[in-house]
């Protein structure tokens, strides 16, 4: 056979033979799979462009179930549906009978899947079990996404991932490095099939907020919003933050090992008596003790880094190092739990979990399920919040301008549905692509009217500060909000002075090291562009690594100051005179490194 006429067949990436008609062969394998002749775990794909058949039977392929469509007819007939309802058959029956089949990425490539029964045509090969099945786990918790602009969907999915909730029911027995736990998770009034089928409604991750699309003296511009202090005091958005600190008694070559204990005052790097005051006798902190920055959680001493360090008195006394675990800088909390155990290497290990209550504050991030995020910009006393005729005060005031450009009409619909649901005392379904559009608005409107509300959700609000009626009516309702794990209290940091790096003498970087913000190359260029020469010097030298260095007048090398004799000395010629020069320490370091290249840099000075 000529090459163009034969079609290679690959099994798990290896050629196992050739066939004449690849497409027909693939179809035959498929039929055999559906009838149970070959395993249902096999996937086959005919790749037209390469004229190759790829059969995959290896593990690790992600597969998705579809209903098989043959000759424009779904194999999931009404009769089967009825049987399924009466529990005469089950899901596995459908899979075994080839009514539902699982496809992997490669086979999925060439199918024609219809979203619903209505859109099946003569080309259709498969049918989605449910239109919402095209979404992943995260996004299927979204409601009414079909009314939102496409661009908001990935944003929304991202926010849902970041939301705090009840992440695991056994959280109390877990020692996660970081964990967030919402105090009072609520079931969304507007939920979806996924909430029920995947049991997400047993451990939800948000709360139903009463929202109003209103401004508040300019405090909720852009993505900022105003929070009701009364709501926060009642527990809105309140959450717990857990952090686990762990350590082990490591063994070192030479029979030495770490020890959990309160270090003696003679230990190298001793942090002072106060830091260890909360430790119990075994050197580990007690449960339910409040701890603050600088407190030691696990006291540990390690053997010296270098054995038998030489001192001027011969071989010195062995001095242990303090290697204790302290609470992270800027954090506080209560020791939630302490766990003692042994590692697989038979060394002692400790885990200390510290808990802290995070009450919503200015700067904390929240988001709805429609990619509408916001940051608390102001927390207002309940008495100052606007109120309705019924005395309802919104939990949150959103900027109305968040909607025109983002076009998240799904949230508008949810607001309405949430309001209707809360009044009528029932849950509504917002499963993706399951609704009938306008009919929903009418339904919710009818319920609202039944309770004496405006059918479009608008309400007359009164200013909480003056008691005056607002001229415009305000769109008010209930939306499910998630509290995201970005909270100011874990991020806020300021520095005016603080630690510097040992090597460069420049300020440290990053929050845990109380670092400064980097004044980088581009920032420097901007100042050069302005000609702000003294500001550059201030940033790059005075506020950074300024160092006074003695430079020899004769040889131009760097000397030192002898404080005993009170004179500056040049290491090359002790009699030479030196000059005190102000340079950046990084430059001194550079000169040292140049010297390591066997190059002697000399600094020539002009006499003043």
């Amino acid at each position, binding site marked *: 056979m000529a090459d163009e006429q034969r079609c290679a067949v690959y099994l798990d990436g290896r050629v196992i033979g050739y066939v004449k008609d690849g497409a027909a062969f693939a179809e035959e394998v498929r039929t055999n799979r559906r009838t149970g002749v070959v395993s249902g775990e096999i996937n086959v794909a005919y790749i037209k462009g390469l004229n190759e058949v790829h059969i995959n039977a290896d593990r690790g392929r992600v597969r998705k179930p579809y209903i098989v469509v043959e000759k424009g007819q779904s194999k999931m007939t009404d009769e089967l549906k009825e049987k399924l309802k009466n529990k005469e058959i089950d899901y596995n029956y459908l899979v075994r009978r080839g009514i539902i089949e699982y496809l992997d990425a490669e086979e999925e490539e060439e199918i024609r899947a219809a979203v619903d029964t209505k859109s099946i045509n003569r080309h259709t090969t498969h049918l989605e079990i449910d239109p919402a099945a095209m979404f992943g786990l995260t996004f299927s918790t979204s409601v009414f996404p079909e009314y939102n602009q496409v661009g908001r969907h990935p944003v929304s999915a991202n926010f849902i991932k970041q939301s705090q909730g009840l992440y695991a029911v056994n959280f109390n027995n877990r020692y996660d490095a970081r964990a967030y736990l919402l105090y009072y998770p609520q079931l969304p009034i507007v939920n979806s099939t996924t909430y029920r089928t995947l049991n997400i409604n047993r451990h939800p991750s948000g709360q139903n907020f009463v929202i109003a699309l209103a401004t508040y003296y300019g405090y909720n511009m852009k993505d900022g919003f105003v929070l009701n202090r009364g709501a926060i005091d009642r527990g809105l958005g309140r959450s717990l933050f857990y952090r686990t600190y762990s350590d082990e008694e490591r063994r070192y070559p030479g029979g030495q090992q770490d020890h959990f204990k309160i270090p003696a005052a003679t230990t190298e790097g001793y942090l002072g008596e106060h830091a260890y005051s909360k430790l119990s006798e075994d050197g580990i902190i007690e449960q339910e003790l409040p701890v603050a920055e600088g407190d030691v959680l696990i006291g540990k001493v390690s053997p010296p880094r270098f054995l038998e360090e030489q001192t001027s008195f011969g071989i010195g006394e062995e001095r242990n190092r303090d290697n204790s675990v302290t609470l992270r800088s800027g954090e506080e909390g209560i020791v939630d739990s302490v766990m003692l155990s042994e590692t697989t290497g038979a060394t002692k290990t400790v885990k200390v979990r510290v808990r802290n209550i995070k009450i919503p504050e200015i700067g904390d991030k929240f988001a709805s399920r429609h990619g509408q995020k916001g940051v608390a910009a102001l927390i207002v006393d309940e008495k100052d919040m606007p109120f309705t005729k019924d005395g309802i005060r919104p939990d949150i005031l959103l900027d109305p301008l968040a909607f025109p450009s983002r076009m998240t009409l799904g949230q508008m619909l949810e607001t309405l549905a949430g309001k209707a649901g809360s009044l009528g005392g029932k849950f509504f379904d917002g499963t993706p692509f399951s609704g009938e559009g306008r009919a929903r608005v009418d339904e919710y409107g009818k319920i609202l009217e039944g309770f004496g509300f405006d059918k479009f959700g608008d309400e007359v609000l009164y200013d909480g500060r003056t008691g005056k009626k607002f001229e415009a009516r305000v769109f008010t309702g209930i939306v499910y909000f998630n509290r995201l794990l970005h909270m100011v209290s874990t991020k806020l940091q300021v520095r005016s002075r603080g630690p510097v790096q040992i090597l460069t003498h420049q300020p440290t970087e990053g929050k845990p090291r109380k670092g400064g913000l980097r004044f980088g190359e581009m920032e420097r260029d901007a100042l*050069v562009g302005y000609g702000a*020469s003294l500001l550059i*010097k201030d940033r790059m030298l005075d506020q950074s*690594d300024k160092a006074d260095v003695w430079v020899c007048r004769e040889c131009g090398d760097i000397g030192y100051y002898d404080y005993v004799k009170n004179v500056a000395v040049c290491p090359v010629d002790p009699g030479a005179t030196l000059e005190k020069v102000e340079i950046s320490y*990084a430059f001194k370091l550079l000169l040292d490194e140049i010297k390591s*290249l066997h190059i002697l840099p000399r600094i*020539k000075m002009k006499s003043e």
Partner: protein
Amino acid sequence: MKQEDNVSVAPGEAVGVVAAQSIGEPGTQMVLRTFHTAGITSVVTTKGLPRIIEIVDARKRPKFPIMRIWPEKEIAKRYEKVREIWRKVEEVKTSAVISNFEEDLKAGTMLLHLDREKMGLYELSAKTIISKISKKEGTDASMAGDDIIKVKYKAKSVEATRKAFVEILGMAIVGIKGIIKANVQQADDGSFYITTSGSNMEEVINVEGVDKDMLYSNDIFEVYRVYGIEAARNIIAYELTEVIKDEGFTVSQRHIALVADGMTFTGKIKSIGRHGVAGEKESVFARAAYEETVKHFTNASFFGERDMLKGVAENIIIGKQIGLGTGLVKLEVKKEDLKKIKPKND
């Protein structure tokens, strides 16, 4: 105050940094991929950021060189005359005027089947083709039938024969080497001009009827070779302006002119970067801070170089106030004036 004083740059202004930022900022928003514009003119050029990089890096040859050839004023509106120039310019290879060929490598002969239609397009006769092919040493060409040219080549081996035949097929019968495609176009005022893919100024300038003052090529080094450094400076500035304008941005001419001047003021075209402007800075520290730190320091020690600490980068490294902007001026007080200052009595 004169208008000129209003717009002139103040002493100590960091013109280089501002120019770099002004060109660099729109650069971040430009398309990163090279894309081609296909149309009736079928002239392909590099656009956007890749072209800016090409110019600023002073590449020896642009990826897609193009030319614009304007005829002399007197003949500009006469299509026939312009077409004559076109005929002399566009390179026509042997392979372009034949329909197919048969080769007998053992005998050392090749039969070229002429395509009369294509020959008519370029107004070529079989005679010109034969005379052109015959110019190759050891080659003998003659008519062998109505539309067939027989080529004979004496060679030692089959390989050498094959090589010679390939060469003959790729031979330029008429036109200028490197001008892959040329098109006659009409300007708004009705005069005709020629656009080309491929550039060869050195030869096009000698073609009769070509306006030597209007000849354009986007190949900077070619402009430099033919017209000199001033022209090269202008073409750099022009090309940069056009690319930026094409992307819908506006950058002040001064920034572009500064870049063009910086690249050419030594009399040679230098790139902005390691091998050009940045690599030839006077200061050792400034060079070392940019790239190849160790190389610059070791070389500096070989030649006993001194860094006079005059530039910006080196002063920031050592921690001195830079000699730019507010750092340019020093305050001095006359000794007599000092005496005038009297302590305040509170």
